């Protein structure tokens, strides 16, 4: 989220698309209701199903799963046609005026540089035309045919209301009504907020779904302002934190990239990181990248990381492929390339696409370790549970360790919420039985390994032997100590380079990442968390809920990264002169000598407005990008591609039907179904009564939604003779689910390219352990397809067939 949960109440229009906020985030959704009641806001919902969010919406429109880009590109076209954009903002704060290189092109569904063999793009043409000093050329008059705004205008010109309706199945009048509501927020003092979640990410074009809305928000001047922003409603309680701390195959803490094979040295690595400003005078904050990397290495390897060994750069593993994500991991498993797998609080047998493939993969492992408070399906993948898990135990040679862990109530620590707040929590009771904390278990494994390497030697033991482990209790390090390590401290007296005066004494905890150095005198395990645990104490444990002007900032409640900033890009909430676009809800304003307001400025606190420094300080051009340059794998502009499994052709460019650079392994492609056999569009989702596969272990939640079912529209049900609450078999090319049918008015057939298209809803909560009734799990049906940029599986649009069937034998 760029903004806070409470800030949603400042919106004038809330659009929920690509998510179901009321069901997935009820307590955050209260701020939508608050916006409606206190701010007179309207709520618009665009969703294949009439969801519980839609039940309180002012306006609802249906859409075919996987066609959001077409819808949103149509909105962009409408805004540009009607000139309903916030001109001042767009000109000053976005790259609308910058001129794109000659050679950039888009034809027949492909951008320039496509390589058909590797299914990837050479993205060199997707950039600005630079002048002699290396700065991007700009045409403020917007006359240049290759300036971004004109290229965009041209790109979206195909998305007329007729085309949008033809692709999405959304009736034109509903589409245009929503366009009108959105356009109204182009006024400088009006804001729209976009709330989305996995309904946008879980597509082969997931990243571009989000980008398209971000572009709309930039055109409307809604980024950085109160009640605006792009608000990704994240799933798990600390998925933000796990990402922040870099627990992804290609990341290190604080969004630093893990080195690639070709980056043979630290200097080589730095070349592609410390972005030079692309416009004169811009901040381009990533220029500090080296400080973050060196401080991280000092935190991890301590004294063993020295200038001489390049701060232990070689001890970092290097990547030969962009990502070892989950889809690749299970592909490797199926190919016999993985020996062991450790699932810490994770249930891939339920969570990952194509359940059959997951089960087959796990069966090929030599060993599997699960660490969980609950008895997960994954830890019992080898056991026969009937049709819901038809495993042949005797044939499965995997050794399985099921390790019991503590849960939230039994440990101290911090979690990062969707709004980037780090909140500390306290232990309330001991764990049951012999359950132990993940920290204890990870330490236990590590110490044993270290001991083995010390005794026996083995493959490259250096990083293992030199890992810092200076904790008071090495067996189970105190979370507070770990938090301090992430915050970072001075390793030597930090002096002012100009005066030589000591600014920070050696050993002191740092106040923020601005103090980090690249000379090995500072250590910080996660630079963006710097400031969370200072000499003043644990900032994450702060509990002052005071909220100036009740604008939804609460700056002294816990701590938010970066630098306790609550609204990202908040410089953009003020105009070029530093005055708030919306005088009623200013966030920061220029008072003549510095930026002041209710939030920490996302900007140099004393940088004058007249200096012309852009508000998007992490970007090299300092601007919001309507044209993404080479930073997206599948194009600098979003384009509508059909899901990999789709009932129709791509009406825009039949030859390029789906995302040409989506992640698809050959074996997975063979498991795609065709509309002839699988004529209906299915989409998976959560219900508000459950949280993924955990709450079926909680009796109350099992009572509230006890049994697996699918949602089918009345028209299709009638066609297929399916009764309310009757049994159906839903099948894809990958598997079948036998469950009950919820025949509903809330899903209506959509008229797509002249043909009625039926959508089937598949909630995903049931498995074969826990208190609820046994179920097959939605991932029995889903295809193994990854988004081109993030490899997120395409759970939200695929093909199935449905038939009436009898009740299974009890």
């Amino acid at each position, binding site marked *: 989220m760029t903004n806070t949960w409470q800030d949603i109440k400042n919106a004038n229009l809330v659009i929920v698309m690509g998510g179901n906020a009321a069901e997935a985030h009820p307590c955050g959704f209260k701020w939508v*209701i608050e916006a409606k009641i206190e701010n007179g806001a309207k709520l618009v919902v665009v969703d294949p199903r009439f969801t519980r969010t839609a039940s309180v919406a002012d306006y609802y429109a249906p859409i075919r799963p996987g066609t959001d880009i077409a819808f949103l590109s149509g909105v962009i076209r409408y805004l540009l046609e009607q000139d309903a954009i916030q001109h001042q903002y767009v000109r000053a704060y976005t790259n609308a005026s910058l001129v794109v290189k000659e050679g950039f092109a888009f034809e027949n569904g492909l951008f320039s540089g496509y390589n058909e063999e590797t299914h990837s793009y050479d993205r060199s043409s997707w950039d600005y035309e630079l002048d002699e000093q290396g700065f991007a050329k700009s045409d403020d008059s917007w006359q240049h045919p290759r300036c971004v705004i004109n290229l965009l205008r041209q790109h979206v010109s195909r998305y007329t209301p007729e085309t949008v309706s033809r692709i999405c199945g959304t009736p034109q009048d509903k589409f245009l009504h929503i366009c009108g509501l959105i356009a109204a927020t182009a006024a400088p003092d009006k804001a729209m907020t976009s709330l989305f979640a996995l309904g946008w990410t879980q597509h082969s074009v997931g990243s571009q779904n989000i980008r398209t809305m971000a572009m709309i928000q930039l055109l409307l001047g809604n980024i950085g302002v109160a009640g605006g922003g792009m608000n990704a409603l994240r799933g798990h309680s600390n998925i933000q934190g796990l990402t922040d701390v870099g627990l992804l195959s290609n990341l290190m803490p604080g969004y630093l990239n893990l080195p690639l094979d070709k980056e043979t040295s630290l200097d080589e690595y730095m070349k592609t990181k410390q972005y030079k400003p692309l416009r004169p005078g811009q901040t381009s904050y990533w220029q500090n990248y080296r400080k973050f990397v060196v401080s991280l290495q000092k935190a991890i390897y301590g004294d063993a990381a020295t200038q001489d060994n390049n701060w232990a750069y070689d001890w970092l593993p290097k990547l030969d492929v962009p990502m070892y994500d989950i889809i690749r991991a299970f592909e490797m498993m199926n190919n016999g390339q993985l020996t062991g797998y450790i699932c810490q609080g994770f249930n891939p047998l339920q969570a990952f696409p194509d359940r059959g493939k997951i089960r087959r993969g796990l069966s090929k492992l030599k060993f599997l370790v699960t660490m969980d408070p609950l008895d997960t399906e994954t830890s019992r993948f080898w056991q026969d549970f009937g049709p819901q898990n038809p495993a042949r135990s005797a044939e499965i040679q995997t050794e399985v360790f099921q390790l019991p862990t503590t849960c939230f109530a039994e440990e101290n620590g911090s979690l990062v919420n969707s709004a980037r707040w780090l909140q500390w929590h306290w232990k309330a009771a001991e764990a049951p039985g012999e359950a132990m904390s993940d920290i204890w278990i990870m330490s236990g494994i590590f110490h044993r390994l270290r001991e083995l390497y010390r005794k026996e030697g083995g493959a490259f033991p250096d990083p293992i032997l030199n890992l810092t482990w200076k904790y008071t209790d090495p067996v189970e390090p105190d979370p507070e100590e770990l938090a301090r390590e992430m915050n970072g401290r001075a390793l030597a007296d930090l002096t002012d380079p100009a005066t030589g005066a000591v600014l920070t004494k050696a050993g002191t905890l740092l106040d923020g990442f601005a103090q980090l150095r690249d000379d090995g005198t500072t250590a910080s395990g996660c630079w963006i968390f710097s400031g969370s645990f200072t000499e003043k104490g644990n900032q994450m444990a702060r509990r002052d809920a005071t909220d100036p002007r009740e604008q939804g900032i609460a700056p002294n409640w816990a701590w938010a990264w970066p630098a306790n900033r609550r609204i990202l890009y908040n410089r953009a909430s003020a105009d070029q002169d530093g005055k708030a676009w919306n005088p009623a809800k200013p966030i920061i304003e220029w008072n003549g000598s510095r930026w002041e307001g209710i939030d920490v400025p996302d900007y140099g606190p004393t940088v004058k407005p007249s200096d012309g420094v852009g508000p998007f300080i992490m970007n090299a051009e300092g601007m919001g990008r309507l044209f993404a340059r080479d930073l997206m794998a599948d194009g600098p502009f979003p384009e509508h591609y059909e899901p990999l499994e789709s009932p129709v052709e791509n009406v825009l460019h039949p030859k390029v039907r789906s995302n040409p650079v989506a992640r698809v392994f050959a074996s997975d492609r063979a498991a795609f179904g065709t509309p002839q056999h699988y004529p209906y569009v299915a989409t998976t989702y959560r219900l508000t009564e459950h949280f993924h596969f955990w709450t079926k272990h909680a009796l109350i939640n099992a*009572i509230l939604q006890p049994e697996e079912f699918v949602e089918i529209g009345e028209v299709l049900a009638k066609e297929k003779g399916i009764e309310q609450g009757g049994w159906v078999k839903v099948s894809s090319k990958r598997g079948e689910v036998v469950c*009950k049918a919820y025949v509903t008015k809330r899903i209506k057939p959509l008229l797509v390219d002249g043909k009625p298209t039926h959508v089937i809803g598949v909630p995903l909560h049931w498995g074969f352990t826990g208190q609820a009734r046994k179920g097959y799990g939605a991932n029995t049906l889903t295809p193994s397809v990854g988004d081109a940029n993030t490899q997120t599986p395409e759970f939200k649009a695929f093909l199935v067939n449905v038939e009436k069937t009898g009740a299974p034998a009890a």
Partner: protein
Amino acid sequence: MSDLQSQDYVRRSASTLTPPSVRSHEDEVAKLIDVSRCIGCKACQSACMEWNDLRPEVGHFEGSYENPADLGPSVWTLMKFAEHENEQGNLEWLIRKDGCMHCEDPGCLKACPAPGAIVQYANGIVDFISDKCIGCGYCVKGCPFNIPRISKQDHKSYKCTLCSDRVSVGLEPACVKACPTGAIMFGSKTDMKHQAAERIEDLKSRGFDQAGLYDPPEVGGTHVMYVLHHADKPSLYSGLPDKPRISPVVGAWKGFIKPLAVAGIALAAVGAFFHWITAGPNEVTEEDEAEGERVLREADAHEPEKSP
């Protein structure tokens, strides 16, 4: 007796005692359910089960999101879902939290034969006092909203207590506290009516001309009220009664028949007594005996061989 004084009961089932009435200034409480803000998430149901330590059986999918399938002795509140297509052809998903309405004039209390098994506190809460409940099920018949349910385990009647245990220590009910969107609010009845009026105004501005408050006067008003977008048709919301009233059948039974019958029986007994006093017992006289013997003797004479 101490019950009556301390708890400020204003009504007590099957009671021959008049509740103390001098403490008349206690604020009445009310729960306001604004269905236009309700997202049907069932947090209220969940909180109710958690706080009150209720765990009904894990059921089945029954063709809607309604789970469990019905209110029950351990299901004190239940979200009800109705898919309604309005005149414009647009879908409205009308979701309503069902449960005890805490009537000002409670039909359950009227019908209850067990003294003190159902009480109404001065704050308006209608509460079932389990140890006094005899499990007859009369409250079920008395309720105009079909709320109380009798347990098959202990044969006692159960329903929402409005978390009287929480309210008595100054907290709001569990469902109210949990409700993520503020669709359930709690406060004095006056404040809740005021809040409702604001909400109704907002709904009217959003095109719901018939928005209104459901506080049915037929049962003297309720301490659980609804803000409805279609207050003209409460029955759209999964059968919320348009005009709830204590059934006239129950009214007759618990109303005039009760005293009339007791009086009638007493009168009959008294009448008999006075008849005894005035007419006296009807004794067999010596003459009767003689006559009787004579008849038998004459009969015997016809059959002398049978005589003893």
